[in-house]
């Protein structure tokens, strides 16, 4: 049934999509930092460059070099948690998520708004924690709050068009982040790839899995830790919620729910860019990815996901000035 007033404004669709992306992003940055802190405890004699990959993961390496120089631990953490000039710092992600939520308060549920708002207020008031030895508690809170937001979202908001945009944003962001952490860790581990099976290697790969909360689920499915199985699990697993294939499957379902196009066919450019990617992940064997080169494969994957994002903007969000950029960069 199409009630005229149930139509979704382009601006509102844009805002819920970015609200979800920013919360997911904040959660992932918190995960990345946390797992590195953890790793540091296991490998206290590791060289200092252990923190550089975190910057590479976030995609802001250039900005970091400009503002901070060498990737020292404290500098990296400060840059990722609360640097006002880093649009992807946790605090800025939450601020942007909240500003977007504020612009669609009549569309999301009150409970969702209160969760985003209190998450933001709490993080702002707890910034000092991030500089203390309670940093891990701070990061854990971000993760739990983000999970709570998702729970509240799924339990209190009708699974309507706006909700589909929200899920679309969450899943695309999550797929992007999983691909990045895999890419960076793999790159870092390359020198030791020929000594597979050493305790050193094992600890690193465990860390990758833990950063996406995938360690236990991986064990159940694959048992022994090998780079090949980890790639298989994080890229091609059908059931693990942070595996790229799973994320894109959810994203594709949401996109079709939005457009009303039957599954398996395409009308909008955004559908045309998402569907083949999803199909590819359904069929490609992990050996093909490995032989092609994981880094090359993930790089191309990220580019294709960016195209999906561009097409979504053209298909649904209109050419209005983009709020997320303004929010993330312009408020300070």
């Amino acid at each position, binding site marked *: 049934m199409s009630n005229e*007033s149930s*139509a*979704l*404004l382009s*601006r509102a669709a844009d805002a819920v999509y970015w609200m979800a992306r920013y919360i997911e992003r904040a959660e992932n940055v918190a995960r990345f930092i946390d797992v590195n802190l953890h790793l540091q405890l296991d490998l206290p004699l590791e060289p200092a460059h252990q923190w550089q990959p975190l910057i590479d993961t976030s995609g802001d390496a250039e900005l970091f070099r400009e503002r901070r120089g060498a990737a020292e631990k404290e500098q990296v953490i400060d840059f990722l948690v609360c640097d006002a000039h880093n649009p992807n710092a946790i605090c800025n992600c939450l601020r942007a998520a909240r*500003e977007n939520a504020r612009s669609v*308060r009549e569309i999301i549920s*009150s409970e969702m*708004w*209160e969760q985003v708002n209190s998450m933001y207020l709490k993080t702002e008031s707890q910034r000092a924690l991030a500089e203390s030895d309670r940093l891990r508690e701070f990061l854990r809170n971000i993760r739990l709050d983000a999970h709570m937001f998702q729970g509240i979202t799924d339990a209190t908001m009708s699974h309507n068009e706006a909700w589909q945009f929200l899920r679309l944003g969450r899943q695309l962001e999550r797929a992007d982040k999983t691909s990045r952490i895999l890419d960076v860790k793999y790159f870092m581990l390359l020198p030791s790839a020929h000594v597979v099976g050493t305790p050193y290697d094992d600890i690193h790969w465990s860390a990758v899995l833990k950063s996406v909360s995938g360690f236990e689920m991986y064990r159940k499915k694959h048992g022994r830790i090998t780079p090949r199985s980890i790639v298989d699990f994080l890229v091609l697993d059908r059931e693990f919620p942070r595996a790229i294939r799973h994320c894109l499957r959810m994203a594709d379902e949401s996109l079709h729910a939005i457009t009303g196009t039957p599954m398996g066919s395409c009308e909008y450019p955004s559908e045309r860019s998402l569907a083949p990617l999803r199909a590819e992940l359904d069929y490609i064997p992990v050996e093909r990815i490995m032989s092609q080169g994981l880094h090359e494969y993930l790089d191309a994957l990220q580019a294709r996901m960016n195209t999906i994002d561009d097409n979504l903007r053209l298909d649904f969000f209109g050419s209005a000035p983009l709020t997320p950029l303004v929010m993330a960069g312009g408020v300070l």
Partner: protein
Amino acid sequence: MQLSSYQTQGFYDEVFDAQCKARPEARLLLEAIESLQDGELLRCQQAAETLLLQMGITFNVYGDSAGTERIFPFDLIPRIVRAEEWNWIERGLKQRIHALNEFIDDIYHDQRILKDKVIPEEVIRSAAFYRPQCRGINPPGRVWCHITGTDLVRHSDGQIYVLEDNLRVPSGVSYVLENRDLMKRTFPRVFAGLQVRPVDIYPSKLLETLQAIAPPRALDNPCVVLLTPGMYNSAYFEHSFLAQRMGIPLVEGRDLVVQDGGVSMRTTKGLRRVDVIYRRLDDDFLDPQTFRPDSLLGVPGLVDVYRAGRVSLANAPGNGVADDKVVYSYVPEMIRYYEGADPILSNVPTFLCWRDQDRQHVLQNLDKLVVKSANESGGYGMLVGPHSTAAQREEFATKIAATPRNYIAQPTLALSRVPTLVEDHLEGRHVDLRPYILYGREIFVLPGGLTRVALRPGSLVVNSSQGGGSKDTWVLAPAIEGGKNEQ
């Protein structure tokens, strides 16, 4: 908590009578307060404020680059209005709104009231919010003031007076609903005992009002939207709150477009026709083609569509002509002229500075009167004589002499007071009352309203921009006489 030290200090108090005894309607409330442990009320107050912050019930402070958000200070001690008194207020407001609407319609059509010399033509021609562009427009049902927030005050004589009509874009109703919510959590027992009339009905009534004014072709299932200047507007919370409670889209000017003689909004599925716009934007910003050409907030061409009857606007552009404080002084005459009856609610006696005799009186009594600019609101452009300095009076004397049309003066009213929590005890603070009136097919007065309180000791200015806060307003249901209570 001890109340014995409370002093009315010679002011009319809404809770205590002149002998400092509790008024009958307030007894239950006072008993509840007295039974609280020391510090309990303060704790409730702080809990309420934290809740407000968490729920994001805030307003933005203009001119603050850090984007500071503040909560509108809220005081837990409610103002109570007896059922009989409310009935009288309600009748008075209905009469007044009806007359004001007749007046606005008349001004933009035949101007009978000017031809009959009840109001000098010059007053209208010089009114800042008179919009000649609106001449000849026929809004659906000839209603121009759909949503009004009249400001009422009680003077030391115990009488209620109308201070301002606020016909243009009145705000604050969201606080009425949110304050009530907080009070129910804090004083559930008192609520049950007192039969406080519910205010939750407002969003449904508002939606009904907006649907009722849809263009005829869309009356079946009109698409109603709320137009906001955007999230950096100080009242943005209220805009999103009302849109949410009515379940209608909250749009900005950039979401709307005029096409094929109609107004549409940009959605994910293309353009959708809009039938009714509850606009929370001043006339000036509505349409750069008709009003201020530099406005980026509005929708180019909107007024043409409105004039053609293809979209309805609430409130109707141009209705601010009656918000002019000089025009205000003629409302009692309007009521006699259009309604053929004496006004139920009184105006505050008003001196018009463009009349020579009045002006002389005002200039000689600046230290006793309140001087107001004819077209400002929010507590700006105002001189409270008894609280003013010689330099301020000098400044106003110069302004009055330069543009007498722009100034009016009124006696300084001793606004009534309500006990208010100050640190750990109660003190009297001055209040006003803003009821909300809806006019679609008929006139509806919400049983309740925003009680604004001047939190600074002795202050008579209740505006939020000037250190004001708010209280819940409890309108009591009429005594039950064997029948069922009113809904």
